[in-house]
């Protein structure tokens, strides 16, 4: 397993996967406070010259918490696209390029191949989401003043976001065993993510869907109600099920099929 982990780590570094997600998330983490503090007020002033200050203030983001929640919204909308298209080829590309044939014939187990990807890229995603939200917290605190109850709620929010991204990664890997076209894998994953959140919101069942992790993260609380445990358990179960299905599917795939 160690050699597969080392290989996937090199893959993340040399194919710029880690750099892309880090740069993408940090871009939003640092840009959101600047946008809200400096650019948006100027834009509003230029668009509505006669607007009084009270009305303008009501339209602007003025607090650190509003900033962080805004950043998390950006991550769901755009960060998801970055994650999906950075990792859509994690497995699909290997099947399309037939790079699994030699390792599998040399002794690599299908389970090892899938679990290593989930572990290496999953840890990277959790680390990036946590570091990014902490950067957003610090930067927005410097610009708007600190107002959250320490960094624990921030770390909790980052970890919940990270867990959601791990679930998305498991979807990407599972779909990669079914579809060899990585773009189709990425688009399908995005559709699943957006629709599941939409349906969760419409039917008010978010806590029973993976997107419930994001809803919980946006609360920025330190406490953990029973609902968050239910959501985490559901997401872990779904991730495990998708991973198991991916291993089974891969072991039954003709790796040489053209």
């Amino acid at each position, binding site marked *: 397993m160690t050699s597969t982990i080392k290989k996937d780590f090199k893959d993340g570094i040399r*194919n710029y996967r880690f750099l892309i997600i880090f740069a993408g998330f940090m871009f939003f983490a640092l840009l959101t406070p600047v946008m809200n503090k400096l650019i948006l007020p100027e834009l509003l002033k230029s668009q509505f010259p006669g607007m009084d200050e009270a009305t303008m203030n009501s339209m602007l983001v003025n607090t650190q918490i509003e900033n962080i929640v805004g950043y998390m919204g950006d991550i769901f909308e755009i960060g998801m696209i970055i994650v999906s298209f950075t990792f859509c080829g994690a497995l699909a590309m290997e099947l399309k390029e037939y790079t699994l044939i*030699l390792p599998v014939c040399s002794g690599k187990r299908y389970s090892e191949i899938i679990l290593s990807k989930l572990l290496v890229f999953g840890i990277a995603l959790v680390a990036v989401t946590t570091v990014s939200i902490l950067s957003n917290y610090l930067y927005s605190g410097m610009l708007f003043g600190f107002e959250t109850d320490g960094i624990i709620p921030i770390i909790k929010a980052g970890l919940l976001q990270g867990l959601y991204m791990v679930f998305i990664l498991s979807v990407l890997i599972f779909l990669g065993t079914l579809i060899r076209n990585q773009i189709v894998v990425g688009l399908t994953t995005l559709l699943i993510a957006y629709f599941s959140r939409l349906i969760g919101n419409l039917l008010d069942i978010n806590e029973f869907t993976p997107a419930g992790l994001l809803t919980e993260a946006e609360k920025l609380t330190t406490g953990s109600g029973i609902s968050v445990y239910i959501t985490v358990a559901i997401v872990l179960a779904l991730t495990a099920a998708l991973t198991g299905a991916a291993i089974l599917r891969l072991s039954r795939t*003709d790796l040489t099929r053209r």
Partner: protein
Amino acid sequence: MIKVEGLNKHFGSFQALHDVSLNVEKGDIYGFIGHNGAGKSTTISILTGLARPDSGTCMVNGKDATRIVNPSDLGIGYLPEDPRFYKWMTARENLMYLYEASGKKNDKGRVDEILGWVGLKESSNRKVGGFSRGMKQRLGIGAALINDPELLFLDEPSSALDPEGRGDVLRLIKDLRDMGKTVFFSTHILNDVERICNKVGILVKGRIVKEDKLSVIQKENILPIYDIETERILDKATVADIEKMSCIKSVQILDNRIQVLTEGKNGCGRELYKYFADRDIIVTSFSLRKNDLEDIFLEEVNRK
């Protein structure tokens, strides 16, 4: 080492393999011949445990290749037709990754040994993405051999290479033979088979139409024609004399060479030798014509 019986495989309504049976003994260099699309790669995919047949038994290295969970359980080395490596890794890193795949500890010595053997030591720290087809093929042979298997499957190892690259690959396969490895080698280049294989299986449209030792197949396909070259051009009377011999069907003259068609495969070489010796005709070359593998292969294809 390999015993296959009644192998069948469909892709949708197309039947790629029809009751394929073959047998490979330890130490054989088995040439698996067939046109493109005959089913060679499909057979190899099944033998290496990478694909499942619809029916049939397939024992490889003492294990049933149709029932194993992981292809590596067969303990074989495999070179695909177009070996694919991680382009962003160096040749050394790729081989090390495959070496460690079998659970062995990091051993630079073994990887260096293989890189040297396939002639890639100087390029070992270059990324594989920049390798030529021939270099990838040689690295592929190294990859197939990295875990020192007794049985190797080489799928069209020389087909897409230039003459120099082909020569390199054939030299490496000869080395494998000298090491006592068993090699199952598919190709449509018949000359390669004649150069290195001792046993041959001919696959036509998914069916094995002939399988035997190369020497036996060649012996079976000897033509009843003697090609005789003499020091001087034979006169018409001598040729007419030869034609009168009871075992001779016809004689053709081409300058100082004659082609003598005889009655049976055993011919009448002794009589011909005696005839020339008695008349003090100096014979510079005397041979019984053999069909080459290409003739045999085409004959089998046409028969189908």
